[in-house]
C-alpha cells in the first residue's frame, strides 16, 4: 500500500475507499484529529500526519512502525476490538 495521504479524488475509487476506511479508523481511536471523521469540517490531511498516525498505531499494536499501511497493519485494524480510544489527546471526552 502507498503511504501517501488519501486524496479520494483519484481514478482508483476502491483504493480511495480503502484509505478512507482506515483514515476513519485512525481518527476513531485517537491517532488522527476527530475532524477527519466529519467530511464537512474541510479537514485536509498532509502526508506526514497520515504516516505519523499509522506509525503510532503500529507502535501501539506491537508492529514495525514503518508508517506504511501494509497488509499486516490493516489485518490488525480489522480485528474485533474495544471502542475506547487508544490515544487520548485529540479531544479525549465522549459526549
Amino acid at each position, binding site marked *: 500500500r502507498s503511504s501517501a495521504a488519501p486524496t479520494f479524488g483519484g481514478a482508483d475509487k476502491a483504493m480511495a475507499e480503502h484509505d478512507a476506511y482506515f483514515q476513519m479508523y485512525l481518527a476513531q481511536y485517537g491517532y488522527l484529529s476527530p475532524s477527519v471523521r466529519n467530511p464537512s469540517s474541510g479537514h485536509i490531511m498532509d502526508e506526514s500526519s497520515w504516516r505519523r498516525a499509522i506509525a503510532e498505531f503500529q*507502535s501501539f499494536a506491537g508492529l514495525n512502525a514503518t508508517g506504511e499501511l501494509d497488509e499486516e497493519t490493516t489485518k490488525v485494524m480489522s480485528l474485533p476490538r474495544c471502542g475506547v480510544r487508544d490515544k487520548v489527546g485529540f479531544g479525549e471526552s465522549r459526549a
Partner: protein
Amino acid sequence: KRYALQGSRWRVKNLTYKISKYPSKLNRAEVDNELAKAFAVWSDYTDLTFTQKRSGQVHIEIRFEKGEHGDGDPFDGPGGTLAHAYFPVYGGDAHFDDAEMWSINSRRGTNLFQVAAHEFGHSLGLSHSDVRSALMAPFYRGYDPAFQLDQDDIQGIQALYGHKTQTDIGGPLPAAPSVPRA
C-alpha cells in the same frame, strides 16, 4: 510500567452496578453471573467491591444496545467494535454491542466475560495497554478458558486503588478469640 491510566478513579471502594438492558440472546441469570465474574477479576486484586442492584441509582450502568444508542458513538454490527465504556470521570457506564454473538464458556462467538472484564477496567480508570498479553490491550484475542489477569493489569489497577488488604477465605470468619477482662 506499560499500563496506562486515564486520570480519573472512583473515590469509594464499594461500587454498585445495574444491568439496565440485557442481551437479547442470553439467559439473564447467566449474564448476571458472567458480569459478576468480570467485576471479580478486579476485586480479586484490590479492596474494591461490586454489588449488583436491580433498580435505583448505581455507579456503573450496563446496557446491551444495537447501533445508535444515545451517546453519539453507534455500534457497528457484528465484528468491529464490540463494546465501549466510560472512565470514572464520565460516569463509568459500559455499553455492549447487542449485534455481537455473545457467548459463555465457548469458543464460538465473542466471550462475554473477557470483554466485560476489559470494559470494566475502563469503568475503573484504566486506558488501553500496549502489552499484548494484557486484558487492557484493545484487541479481542478469542476465548481463553484459562484466563488470568496479566501482571500489567494488576499493576495498573493497584496503582489506582491499592493492593488488596482483606483476603477472601471462602467462608465465614472464625469467632474472635475471647479476651479476659482486666
